[in-house]
């Protein structure tokens, strides 16, 4: 090979790189390892983490422990999916493209919306991208964002980060009421002709199912767009979908739908909207077309919105769609199907409500909010620190303490119960924290 190139050593290929750089380029790291040594090292690291199967987790807050049928990993482990590139050559990417078209359809059906893109990074960036999309749709006189404080704190943080450098944007928070839902009174007072969009969780961060009817009415009456954010899409197996409430943009985190928790990533953000806004949508889109012989096929389409064509005028800088994760969710939703999605949602509701009823019957625990909830609820505890310690000793993580984001809820715990939490486990939780 060297002879073909016409050189005597590979080093000659580097001769044009300044010597001052080359001289200091050595990488000071240990030498390579055998596969066995690598596996042992990683297994050792893995073993010092508490896992959901070994412990008892009642943790949600944007990432959920759900059952994943074996067929999901079987499909996404196929190298034809896992090691392929972005489907820029559609003739040899029909597998990925058709799966993405099916994904888009499933997300539309689940959210009750008309269109969906092929996916974005996560729920938080989906929420931020939704606000930016509204900025493209709404006139420059509307630059005020009304954001529910009951929206996931990470999502609120990411929205704030994304908007900080856009000088025209104004970000206002709407508080929550005693039901744990967005304070509709405050929202109605604040939404006006300068409002660009209202963004609320559905269910929200406290697990509470927002009543979207008055929120949508307040938006519609003032020309503001309604953005819903669903961190737990399993809920949509049972709940009236955002589209049916009149949402303009419906986004969320898709991890719940067949992707392992993996310390919170990778999952994917789903992103749905209405047909009339399609040209303002961020991210990839797959569309149906035909080949030269009239056969159905799928391609990436409306790329004129995207960075590789439009550069600084693109709708977003994004150039990934977390495809392998959206594929996992496509397989997952196909397996569960109509009846499975509903059954799963019902089981979650049933177990979570059962757990809450039993917990709040203990004297030092009470329900923090009165609103209807899906599979998460907030508990107020008399001595939270002590409770957490007792649970840890029993290898239970009873929930997420809320004080880190909400000082007024520093004695509160966000508890999540899914189909993975067996009845006995709930009983054990009640036993340990109910004393």
């Amino acid at each position: 090979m060297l002879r073909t190139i016409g050189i005597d050593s590979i080093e000659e290929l580097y001769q044009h790189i300044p010597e001052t750089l080359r001289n200091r380029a050595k990488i000071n790291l240990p030498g390579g390892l055998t596969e066995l040594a690598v596996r042992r090292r990683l297994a050792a690291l893995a073993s010092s983490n508490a896992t959901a199967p070994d412990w008892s987790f009642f943790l949600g807050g944007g990432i959920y422990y759900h059952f994943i049928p074996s067929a999901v990993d079987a499909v996404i482990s196929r190298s034809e999916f896992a090691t392929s590139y972005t489907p820029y050559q559609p003739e040899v990417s029909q597998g990925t493209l058709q799966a993405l078209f099916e994904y888009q359809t499933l997300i539309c059906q689940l959210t009750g919306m008309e269109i969906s893109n092929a996916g974005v990074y996560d729920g938080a960036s989906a929420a931020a991208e939704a606000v930016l999309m509204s900025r493209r749709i709404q006139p420059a006189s509307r630059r005020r964002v009304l954001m529910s404080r009951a929206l996931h704190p990470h999502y609120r943080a990411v929205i704030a980060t994304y908007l900080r450098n856009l000088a025209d944007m104004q970000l206002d928070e709407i508080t929550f009421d005693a039901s744990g839902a967005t304070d509709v009174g405050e929202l109605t007072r604040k939404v006006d002709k300068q409002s660009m969009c209202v963004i609320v969780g559905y269910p929200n961060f406290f697990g509470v199912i927002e009543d979207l009817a008055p929120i949508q009415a307040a938006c519609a009456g003032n020309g503001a767009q309604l953005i819903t954010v669903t961190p737990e899409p399993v809920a949509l197996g049972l709940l009236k979908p955002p589209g049916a409430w009149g949402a303009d943009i419906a986004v969320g985190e898709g991890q719940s739908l067949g992707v392992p928790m993996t310390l919170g990533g990778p999952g994917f953000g789903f992103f749905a909207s209405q047909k009339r806004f399609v040209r303002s949508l961020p991210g990839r889109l797959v569309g149906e077309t035909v080949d030269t012989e009239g056969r159905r096929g799928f391609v990436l389409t409306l790329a004129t919105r995207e960075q590789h064509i439009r550069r600084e005028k693109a709708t977003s800088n994004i150039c990934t769609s977390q495809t392998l994760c959206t594929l996992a969710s496509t397989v997952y939703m196909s397996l569960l199907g109509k009846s499975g999605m509903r059954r799963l949602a019902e089981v979650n509701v049933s177990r979570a409500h059962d757990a809450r009823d039993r917990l709040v019957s203990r004297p030092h625990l009470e329900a923090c909010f009165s609103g209807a909830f899906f599979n998460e609820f907030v508990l107020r505890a008399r001595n939270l620190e002590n409770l957490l310690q007792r649970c840890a000793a029993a290898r239970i993580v009873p929930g997420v303490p809320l004080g880190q984001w909400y000082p007024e809820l520093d004695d509160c715990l966000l508890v999540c119960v899914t189909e993975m939490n067996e009845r006995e486990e709930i009983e054990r939780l009640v036993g340990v924290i109910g004393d």
Partner: protein
Amino acid sequence: MRERRSNVLSESSAIKPQSEASAPRLLFESGSPGRSGFYWPAESEKGQTTIPGEFLREDIPGFPELGELEVLRHFTRLSHRNFAIESQFYPLGSCTMKYNPKVNEVVARLPGFAQIHPLAPVDILQGAMELLYDLERILIEISGMDCISLQPSAGAQGELTGLMLIRAYLTEKGNSRKKIIVPDTAHGTNPASSALCGYDVVQISSTARGVIDTATVAKVMDEDVAAIMITNPNTLGLFEKDIEAIAAVVHQKGGLVYLDGANLNALMGVAKPGHMGVDVLHMNLHKTFSTPHGGGGPGAGPVAVKAGLSEYLPVPRIVKRNDKFELLEDCPKSIGRVRSFFGNFGILVRAYTYIISLGREGLEESSRMALLNANYIRKKLEKGYQIAYSEPCMHECIFTDRLQHKYGVNTLDIAKRLLDYGFHPPTIYFPLVVSGALMIEPTETETPETLDAFVEAMLAIAQEAKENPDVVKNAPHSTPVKRLDEARAARKPILRWDSGQGGAE
């Protein structure tokens, strides 16, 4: 029109069994009411009654009703309609389609990584924190930078994060400035990220030799410029050898230097960005550190900075105190969060595994071999194609379709014809500065035999272009579908299946 076509489709699918050759039906076009691949008995209805009826839906119209085997067959058939690294050579320039070792997949699926929750107390996540902390140190060593955040989900989010850091730093100095200099060879994400960060883009031209010239930068560099974004090696596969001088010009006027680290895979053991005057850098772990591309993500795009910018990095930061790892949330100057939780942890685990497997020599060797392979192809293909820049390249080389023009054959035709030869085409029509570009990045994981076979196919196509151009212009001939009507897809977008019309509207 559409309805008629869909009727024809459904009729024909009713008569003909689905073979490998025919297009698989959509998920929504098969199945039977009540069928599901998921078994779970009903439980007490107790909970559901507390949710008011007006919050509930009746049904999910159109959702699939399939059994497990049906679902598996469907996706297995779809998989057969994909090219992938494990079946085809994928010389996609700038995308770095190297082999993704299997061990990475095995360890990422260990319950101690896959089944852990990000909001669990950090004292029961010490293994994960140690991995992240170690990976930070390793990437700092490889890049020659000082501090890093692993949070960004992908290269483009890394870019945006990096620009936000620059903006926060300059704002604190008293002036956030207005513009970012971006060369004409840059990835499209560079200008898109700049705009998203509230900056105007000043595009500069590269020289006839394909690199940026210090004088050109000096001409546009002023106190309004926040930063220059440089890709090194650039997208032409050339090393920006004046980068230190360019950095000096930018620094002198108070600006910063951003390095798009998409091509870091050419530099390991060769040169460190941290020594080039770079202030901020993102890395694409799915390229250099071989995590699978997954048909378009997930990836990971960590951002590394020089010490002066460390206070602005996203929160949380992982710190080590008394041999324990803790999360630092309280960083008043931080730009905040750019995504939820810890970024794409599963991808970080794979990249870490890759790095410790290869170790120092392995990483350095990977860059050397990537250069060797690219230059080998550069030399061999000169026989049939016009090279864009004749000097030695780094990890990728660029050809054009100039010699094929007289036969009416262009880059797209060549790309499509390659599919018939069983190769994924190179990146085409990018970078934009080269007309009809064919951007070839073989990576280090291919054998000389594969490279030769690819070259042979390319040269055969060059011959066909001369002798029988129609066979090239009408390619591909052997793929599951022929060229697709992209104009039609964009003109009248069909973005989902719709039950109402059998087809989709």
